[in-house]
């Protein structure tokens, strides 16, 4: 680099200094935009901060921001403080004038082409249009297109730099406008996220309240159904006691049918109540030794099956977290089902176990060699009141598996089944592992 005898910087070198100053000023302006805009309430406030920074950076008298609206007309969205000061048009009239303008004149050149443009002699420019009386004088002009999310739809315009705009000004404002766009786009994205979240919350609340209503409904239906039912059973019983031989065989048969039907309905209501109660109660999590739990369940249920041999095989039960009462209910239902559907088998075999080596979940299974079901009905298996066997074949209300599914889902697990009719059925359910010892 050339140096003179005194080792002072040459003119060329000295020229670096104002350039460095400019860069520092630009950086400061960008930092200002990023620092001050997140606190703004409105987009217009963000725009004002940027316009002020742009005016200071370039030495402009005033500035504005505008964008094309969906109708293809030009809206001036923000005029800087200095711009309003220089404006002699009454505010209300001005506010009306600056919206829905035809997109023409020198302002819109770069907007159309998506580039920056400088016009330091607007009065002689072929595109110049006449300004309304009271409009601030435009003796020099610079526009920079703004890239909103999805394309160029706006511009930042500066006017009234006495010495005229330079390429350096243009570069500065292009950089500043990038910062402006960044804060604006981010803001819009955040707003959108907030709106979506609010909408999601509204939906969640609607669903929750619908759910609560449904629970209350099923609870009260179950209770209110119970009253007439117990009157039927109660009075049938009284009638039976009252009879003393006055009724014939047929009448007694009718009474028996009424009695049995009401008992059946009583069981349905009980199951429905249990189902609705289960979804209303909070999960009470604790560490569960599934080996103990399963053996207790088998102990409870085996009592009813003393007349036939059952080959039990229990393997690899873990200790992990869950709602003990609810998961006991799941095993009770699955094991009771296994017992029920192996009843026609001369040698019943029931396997209960767990696959514990998956990283994120433990999968339990209950397998039996019972009558099984046709896999084409598998999607009905866990539905409330759905039954795959007639009640003459196998008793049941169709609530048990619906209950199991609800309990497992509440534990964030999955439940499914596989069956080969006439040979075997396996019920699987998984529990997420985070609570395992």
């Amino acid at each position, binding site marked *: 680099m050339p140096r003179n005898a005194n080792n002072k910087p040459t003119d060329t070198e000295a020229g670096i200094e104002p350039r460095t100053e400019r860069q520092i000023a630009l950086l400061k302006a960008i930092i200002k935009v990023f620092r001050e805009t997140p606190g703004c309430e409105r987009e217009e406030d963000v725009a004002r901060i940027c316009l002020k920074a742009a005016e200071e950076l370039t030495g402009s008298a005033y500035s504005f921001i505008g964008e094309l609206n969906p109708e293809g007309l030009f809206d001036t969205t923000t005029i800087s403080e200095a711009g309003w000061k220089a404006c002699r048009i009454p505010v209300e009239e001005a506010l009306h004038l600056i919206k829905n303008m035809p997109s023409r004149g020198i302002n819109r050149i770069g907007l159309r082409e998506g580039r920056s443009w400088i016009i330091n002699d607007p009065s002689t420019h072929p595109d110049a249009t006449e300004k309304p009386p009271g409009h601030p004088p435009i003796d020099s002009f610079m526009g920079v297109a703004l890239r909103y999310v999805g394309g160029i739809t706006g511009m930042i315009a500066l006017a009234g730099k006495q010495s005229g705009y330079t390429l350096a000004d243009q570069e500065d404002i292009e950089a500043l406008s990038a910062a402006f766009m960044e804060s604006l786009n981010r803001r819009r994205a955040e707003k959108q996220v907030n709106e979506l979240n609010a909408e999601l919350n509204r939906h969640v609340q609607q669903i929750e309240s619908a759910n609560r209503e449904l629970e209350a409904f099923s609870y009260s239906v*179950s*209770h209110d159904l*119970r*009253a007439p039912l*117990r*009157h039927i*059973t*109660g*009075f049938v019983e*009284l009638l039976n*006691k009252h009879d003393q031989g006055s009724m014939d065989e047929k009448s007694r048969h009718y009474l028996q049918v009424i009695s049995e039907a009401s008992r059946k309905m009583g069981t349905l209501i*009980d199951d429905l*109540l249990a189902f609705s*109660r289960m979804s209303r109660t909070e999960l009470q999590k604790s560490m569960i030794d599934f080996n103990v739990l399963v053996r207790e369940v088998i102990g409870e249920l085996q009592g009813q099956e003393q007349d036939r041999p059952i080959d039990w095989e229990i393997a690899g039960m873990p200790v992990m977290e869950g709602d003990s009462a609810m998961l006991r209910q799941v095993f009770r239902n699955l094991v009771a089902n296994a017992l029920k559907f192996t009843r026609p088998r001369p040698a019943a075999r029931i396997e209960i176990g767990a696959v514990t080596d998956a990283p994120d979940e433990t999968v339990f299974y209950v397998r039996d060699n019972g009558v099984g079901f046709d896999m084409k009905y598998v999607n009905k298996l866990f539905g409330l009141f759905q039954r795959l066997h007639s009640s003459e074949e196998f008793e049941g209300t169709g609530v048990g598996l619906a209950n199991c599914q609800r309990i497992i889902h509440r534990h964030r697990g999955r439940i499914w089944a596989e069956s080969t009719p006439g040979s075997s059925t396996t019920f699987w359910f998984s529990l997420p592992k985070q609570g395992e010892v």
Partner: protein
Amino acid sequence: MIPLKRILLVEDNPNDAELTLEALGEHNLANEVTWVHDGEEALDFIFCRGPFEDRTCNDLALILLDLKLPKVDGLEVLRVVKSDQRMKLIPVVILTSSREERDLVDSYKLGVNAYVVKPVDFKEFMNAVEELGVFWALVNEPPPASGKRAR
């Protein structure tokens, strides 16, 4: 022989009331049973006021109380009875329409003495009564050391 104390049945549903009276009557329970239809009537009867101003007071051995009642509900009746110094000694048995209502911690908090599930099965009723230790009030046999008895 001193006359047996009275049982008060608070039940709005006539069918349930009939079934309960049948269950009690069938076993030759000698106590007189008075049936009232709502909580307000029950409180008037218990505290001998309004239409029951002139009745002999303090003759209740037991209150059989339904929870769902018109006007004043069962829990409110329970609360009033259990917060009265004299009346809180009367055992109250709640008649529930299902075992589910055993979950009602509220009635426990208010000091209910026992539950019987509807329709009132006499065996279950007597079990509850036995638990309460008010057997004597129903069968007219003074309990051992009845003078010191702290219920």
